[in-house]
C-alpha cells in the first residue's frame, strides 16, 4: 500500500496530538524512529529520560528484568509477529503500572521489516478496579460463610431458587435448587413455611417463625426469618437457635426462682450498677425497682454502722471481677438496720469477659445478734474464769498461811507448857514463861492479820468514792513526816495526768502508806533518798507508779516472794513483811494488779494498775 499524504497527516496527528495515546517505532537496533507526544511524557515520568529520535530504547529502560523482557518482545515483533501482551512496567519508585501492549513489525515499501511498532494502552486503572471488586467479593463471601445462617431464596410457590450461604445442611436441604419446601420438611413445618412466605409477600414485612427438627436422634431449634426480596421472591435466613433457646429456658427458670425466693436477688452490670432486682429485694429493703435501677447497691444500702473493711472487700472484688461472700449491716429505706449475708458471683460471656454480677442477699439479723450475744457471754465467762482462778490461788495461799503461821506458835505453846511442867529451875521457868508470852502474842498477831485479810477478801461490796490522789498523798506524807525529815528524803508526786481515782478510801490510804513507808525504810544510806509518786490513765484504768533510789531487792532471788506474808529480804529491825502482802490483797480484791521492778542498790519501782472501773468520770 502506498503511503499517501493523508496517511502521513493522519500519522502525524496521532504522533503529535494531545490525545494521550502512546505509540512508538524502533529500528532494528532498537533505536527510536518515531514516537507520540504522550510516549515522551510517559518515558519522562517513569524513567526520567528525554527521548529523541535515535535514542536506544533498551538503554533507557533501567531495570534489567524489564529490559530483557522488552528486548524479547521487540525481537518477536522484528521476526514479523503481531501480538498483544498485558505487561507490568515501571521503576520501583513509581507504582507498578499495567499496560496492554500491541506489538507489530514495521515494513518498508518492499515489505522488508525495518523495525517494530508498539502501541501502549495503560490499563492500570481498570486493573485496580478489578482487584478491588475481587477483594470485596471475597470479604462478602467470608462474612456470609461466618454467619451461622442458611440463606436462600424461595419463590411465592415455595420453590427454592438459590442458595447464598449454606452452612446448615442437615434437615433443611435434602435436595438442591429446584426442590420445594414440601420435599425438605414434614407437612407441619412446610405449611408454616408457605404461610410465612405468603404473609411476608402480602404485607411486605419481615416474618419470623421458629420450629424444631430432629436430626440424628437429637432435637435442634431453628429460627427462620422471611424477608421480601421482590414481589415474587423471599429471602429466607435460617439460624440454629438451639443453644440460645436452652439459655433462655434456663434464664426463665432462674428468674422464676429469683422471683419467688424470699431472698433478695440483684443483677448488676460489670461495674456493679443495678440492672435487675426481684420482689424479694423490695420486700427486704423497701426500695422499688425505679428507685434503685442503675445505682450501685452500696450507694444507698449502707450506713453508719456498715463495716468499712467489709465495704472495701466488696469494692475490690467487683473491681477485680471475683466472687465474694460477706456479711455486713445494711439499712432499709425507712432506716431500719439489719444484717445481710451477700453471696455474689461474676457472670462471664463466651469470651470469658465479666459482663454482670449476680448476688443473693439474705437477712441474717437474728443469727448475727445471736452470735454477738454468744461472743459477749464468752468474754464475760472468760473474765469470770480468770477471776475464779485468781481467787483460788489466793485461797491456797491463805490456807498455807493459816497452816504455818498458826501451827507454829500453837505447837510451841504446848511444848513450852510441857517443859514448864518438867522444869525445876526457877530462872529456866521464867525463861519458858517469857517464851510462852511471846508465842501467844505472835499467835494473836497472826490472828489479827488474817482477820484483816479476810475482811478484804470477803468485803463484798465495799464502797468506792472519787478520791483526790493529791489529798491522800499529803495526808500520808504528814503521817510519815518524822521519818522523811530524819533521813532527809525528797518525796514528790505528780498526779496531773490522773488526779482522781474511784476507789475505797481506806484501801488507797493503806496502799500509799505502805509503799511510802517501805521506800523510806529501805533507803540507801550512801545517797539522798528520792521517792516519787505518779499517776496516769490507760484504757479507762488508772495506773500509779512509786519509784525510789533505795536498796532495791534481788528479784532474781526473791521475786516470787515479794508479796507474800512475812517474807523479808533485808536485815532490818522493822521488816515484818506484812505491808506488801496486805496491799496486794487489797489491790487484787478491787480487780487490779501490782508489779515490781528492782535493781539491787539502785532502786525499786512499784507499778499498780487499779483495775477497770477505777476511772471515775
Amino acid at each position, binding site marked *: 500500500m502506498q503511503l499517501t499524504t493523508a496517511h502521513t497527516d493522519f500519522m502525524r496527528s496521532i504522533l503529535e496530538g494531545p490525545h494521550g495515546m502512546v505509540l512508538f517505532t524502533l529500528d532494528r537496533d532498537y533505536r527510536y524512529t518515531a514516537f507520540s507526544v504522550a510516549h515522551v511524557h510517559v518515558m519522562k515520568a517513569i524513567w526520567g529520560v528525554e527521548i529523541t529520535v535515535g535514542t536506544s530504547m533498551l538503554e533507557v529502560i533501567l531495570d534489567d528484568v524489564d529490559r530483557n523482557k522488552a528486548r524479547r518482545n521487540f525481537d518477536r515483533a522484528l521476526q514479523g509477529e503481531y501480538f498483544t501482551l498485558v505487561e507490568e512496567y515501571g521503576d520501583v519508585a513509581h507504582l507498578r503500572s499495567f499496560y496492554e501492549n500491541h506489538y507489530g513489525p514495521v515494513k518498508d515499501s518492499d515489505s522488508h521489516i525495518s523495525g517494530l511498532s508498539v502501541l501502549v494502552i495503560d490499563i492500570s486503572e481498570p486493573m485496580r478496579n478489578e482487584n478491588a471488586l475481587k477483594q470485596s467479593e471475597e470479604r462478602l463471601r467470608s462474612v456470609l460463610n461466618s454467619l451461622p445462617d442458611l440463606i436462600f431464596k424461595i419463590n411465592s410457590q415455595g420453590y427454592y431458587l438459590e442458595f447464598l450461604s449454606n452452612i446448615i445442611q442437615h434437615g433443611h436441604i435434602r435436595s438442591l435448587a429446584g426442590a420445594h419446601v414440601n420435599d425438605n420438611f414434614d407437612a407441619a413445618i412446610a405449611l408454616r413455611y408457605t404461610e410465612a412466605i405468603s404473609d411476608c409477600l402480602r404485607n411486605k414485612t419481615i416474618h419470623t417463625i421458629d420450629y424444631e427438627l430432629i436430626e440424628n436422634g437429637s432435637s435442634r431449634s431453628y429460627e427462620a426469618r422471611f424477608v421480601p426480596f421482590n414481589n415474587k421472591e423471599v429471602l429466607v435466613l435460617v439460624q440454629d437457635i438451639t443453644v440460645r433457646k436452652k439459655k433462655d429456658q434456663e434464664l426463665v427458670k432462674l428468674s422464676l426462682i429469683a422471683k419467688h425466693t424470699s431472698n433478695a436477688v440483684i443483677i448488676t452490670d460489670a461495674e456493679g450498677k443495678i440492672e435487675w432486682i426481684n420482689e424479694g429485694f423490695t420486700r427486704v429493703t423497701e426500695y422499688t425497682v425505679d428507685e434503685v435501677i442503675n445505682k450501685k447497691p452500696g450507694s444507698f444500702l449502707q450506713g453508719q454502722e456498715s463495716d468499712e473493711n467489709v465495704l472495701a472487700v466488696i469494692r475490690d472484688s467487683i473491681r477485680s471481677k471475683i466472687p465474694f461472700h460477706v456479711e455486713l449491716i445494711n439499712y432499709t429505706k425507712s432506716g431500719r438496720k439489719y444484717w445481710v449475708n451477700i453471696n455474689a458471683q461474676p457472670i462471664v460471656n463466651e469470651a470469658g469477659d465479666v459482663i454482670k454480677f449476680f448476688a443473693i442477699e439474705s437477712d441474717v439479723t437474728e443469727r448475727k445478734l445471736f452470735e454477738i450475744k454468744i461472743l459477749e457471754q464468752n468474754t464475760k465467762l472468760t473474765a469470770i474464769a480468770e477471776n475464779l482462778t485468781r481467787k483460788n490461788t489466793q485461797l491456797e495461799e491463805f490456807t498455807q498461811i493459816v*497452816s504455818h503461821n498458826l501451827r*507454829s*506458835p500453837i505447837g*510451841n505453846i504446848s511444848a513450852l507448857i510441857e*517443859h514448864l511442867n518438867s522444869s525445876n529451875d526457877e530462872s529456866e521457868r521464867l525463861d519458858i514463861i517469857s*517464851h510462852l508470852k*511471846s*508465842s501467844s502474842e505472835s499467835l494473836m498477831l497472826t490472828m489479827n492479820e488474817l482477820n484483816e485479810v479476810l475482811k478484804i477478801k470477803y468485803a463484798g461490796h465495799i464502797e468506792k468514792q472519787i478520791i483526790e490522789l493529791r489529798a491522800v498523798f499529803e495526808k500520808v506524807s504528814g503521817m510519815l513526816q518524822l521519818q522523811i525529815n530524819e533521813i532527809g528524803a525528797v518525796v514528790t508526786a505528780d498526779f496531773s495526768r490522773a488526779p482522781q481515782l474511784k476507789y475505797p478510801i481506806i484501801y488507797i490510804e493503806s496502799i500509799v502508806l505502805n509503799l511510802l513507808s517501805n521506800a523510806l525504810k529501805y533507803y540507801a544510806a550512801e545517797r539522798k533518798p528520792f521517792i516519787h509518786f505518779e499517776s496516769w490513765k490507760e484504757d479507762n484504768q488508772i495506773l500509779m507508779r512509786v519509784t525510789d533510789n533505795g536498796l532495791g531487792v534481788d528479784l532474781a532471788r526473791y521475786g516470787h516472794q515479794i508479796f507474800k506474808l512475812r517474807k523479808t529480804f*533485808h536485815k532490818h529491825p522493822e521488816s515484818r*513483811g506484812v505491808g506488801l502482802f496486805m496491799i496486794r490483797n487489797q489491790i487484787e480484791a478491787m480487780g487490779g494488779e501490782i508489779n515490781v521492778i528492782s535493781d539491787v542498790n539502785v532502786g525499786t519501782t512499784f507499778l499498780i494498775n487499779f483495775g477497770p472501773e477505777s476511772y471515775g468520770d
Partner: protein
Amino acid sequence: MEIKNIRIALVDDDSSYQFLTSRTIRSIGNTNDILQFYNGLEAIQYLSQNAHIPQELPDLLLLDINMPLLDGWMFLEEYSSIKDRIEKEINIVMVSSSIDSKDIDRARQHEDIADYLMKPVSIEKFKELLEANAA
C-alpha cells in the same frame, strides 16, 4: 561417837522453837554447844567461813523452811554450790511445820536432805535422830 559429842546446828527463825529444841537436845544428853542460826543467810555464811575447819562445822543440821532473808530451799541452793569446799559430811534434816505435800515430796527427793521431820518434833524422835547420827 557418843551423842554428847555431836555438833548440832539449828536453823530456824522462831526463837521459842530454838529455845525448846536446844533444851530438849540437852536433856537427851548432848552437851556440846548447839549452833543457833535465825535464818538461812546466817547459816550459810557460817558454813562458808568455816568450810576448812571441821571441828567448827556441825555434824547434824536441822533446817526450817520458812525463814526470812534466805529460806530453807534457798539455803540448800547456796549449800550445793559450796558443798565441795566443806571438809565435813553434814547431815541435813529438814524440820518444818509445813504440811504441804509439795514441800514433803521436794524434801524427800532432794539429794542433800537426809530426812524430813514435822513440827512439833517429839523427844523420842530427837533421841532417835541423835543416836542415828552418833552411829
